[in-house]
């Protein structure tokens, strides 16, 4: 009962925040639609194993969707709730603030899922980008990747004393994830070593790309995502302060 109410409330607050809606939910889709409007990016290219740039770039936009929400929105909001005494205020009620945290996780997970679906669906509808060809592998890669990113986001929320500090730390993580995820520079333009590191940086753009193209993703990056998720999640749960 109280969790449902909390989810409803947090979802409303998310929807009222124009930045989180526009940037978090729709910017990756808008970028994809914008890039696809450039004819040459819709031509198959030898640089990208003979596929089109927009096909190659779509997984990076999934990285962006998950990263914006999990690494930027989630930790900033949670640290702000601590800073403003909202978590402490809940400790004064019969419902533990862990439920508010759970509600935040649910709302942000749904938001990241929606943002990713918008990328996949708009790409499919507008530019004929095929749907992920190994849906089960893609689902596994997505779930492990998003969990690792959200666990890192929670870790930031746990250590940051203020919303401003959370936003600062989160920006560094977010930009790293974007860089290694090939959002800033397409990965075929990155030095090989950097691109290989990128395979292991959450949420793991290569596993998304492989499973999207119908290949079986490598096991080690998936395992790394699982380890990051468990380690960061457990650490943040242990050190998280309610006030």
């Amino acid at each position, binding site marked *: *009962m*109280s969790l449902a*109410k909390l989810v409803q409330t947090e979802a409303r*607050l998310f929807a009222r925040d124009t930045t989180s809606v526009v940037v978090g939910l729709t910017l990756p889709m808008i970028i994809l639609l914008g890039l696809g409007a450039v004819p040459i990016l819709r031509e198959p290219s030898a640089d990208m194993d003979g596929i089109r740039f927009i096909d190659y770039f779509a997984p990076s936009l999934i990285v962006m969707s998950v990263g914006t929400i999990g690494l930027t929105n989630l930790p900033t909001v949670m640290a702000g709730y601590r800073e*403003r*005494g909202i978590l402490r*205020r809940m*400790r*004064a009620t019969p419902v533990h603030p862990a439920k508010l945290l759970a509600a935040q996780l649910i709302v942000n997970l749904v938001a990241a899922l929606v943002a990713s679906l918008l990328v996949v669906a708009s790409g499919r509808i507008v530019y004929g980008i095929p749907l992920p060809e190994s849906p089960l592998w893609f689902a596994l890669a997505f779930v492990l990747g998003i969990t690792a990113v959200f666990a890192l986001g929670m870790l930031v929320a746990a250590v940051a004393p203020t919303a401003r500090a959370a936003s600062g730390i989160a920006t560094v993580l977010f930009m790293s994830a974007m860089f290694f995820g090939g959002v800033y520079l397409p990965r075929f333009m990155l030095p090989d070593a950097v691109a290989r590191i990128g395979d292991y940086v959450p949420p793991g753009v290569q596993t998304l790309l492989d499973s999207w193209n119908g290949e079986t993703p490598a096991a080690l990056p998936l395992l790394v995502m699982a380890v990051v998720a468990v380690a960061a999640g457990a650490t943040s749960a242990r050190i998280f302060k309610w006030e």
Partner: protein
Amino acid sequence: MAIIEVKDLVKHYGSQRAADGISFTVDEGEIFGILGPNGAGKTTTVECIEGLRTRDSGSVSVMGLDPERDAKELKQVLGIQLQESRLPDRLRVGEALDLYRSFYRNPADPERLIESLGLGGKRKTPFGKLSGGQQQRLSIALALVGNPRVAVLDELTTGLDPQARRDTWDLIEQVRDSGVTIILVTHFMDEAERLCDRLAVIDSGKIVAVDTPSGLTARVSAEQRVRFRPSAEFADALLLDLPEVSAVERNGAQVVVSGGGNLLQAVASVLARNHIVAADLRVEQVSLDDAFVALTGKSIEN
């Protein structure tokens, strides 16, 4: 009947003793004030009662519940208003009450709370757009939405304008009249004097005195002063002969008579017998401020 019992409560922060052997009881249905300067240990004491802090030693019982052991059960019957706690800026008044209502087994009617707190026109106003006084009233509403038996209100009129303070005081009295026991943490003398049935004066983590507001002032001094401008000359001896009068001073045209017992009546009847009219007659009594200074050796403002 005692609804809250605090015995030998001790809480340290490092080497600092925020609560140093605090003991008192609160009776059901009373407004019990905790008065003291900033940093005296007031908030620490009530946070141990609320179960928001773990005590180092001593015992606390609220309606027979231990705030640490029975935390969840206690919070069903305890309404808490915290100092300096905010809500998300975009959360609306009605939504906040609706949300907090869902945390309790037997919540109050949020509509009635909104009305009685004068927030009727603000249901759809987001928290960030409320004035300081409205935010404070919402915070009181949230403390009451669980239909508590005991409400703990910490510095509830800080930052309010005089009218809002008086309105809040009226509200607190209504809440008490509905059967809720109230602990009021304050550093305002007028608030304590106006609202509290009994007061605990805390200084440096210790209880200095527990008494009614008038009991506290009586402890310090029973002396009263009567000031007036007489319509005709008279000799000081006329008043000094009265057993109630201890001293007579003259301050220009003004006469200041000090003494005890039924001073005013004694002075007034002697003047009347001698056909002297007392103009600008005023009676001065020891205030709670004076009592506080006498009890703690310092002014509450510091």
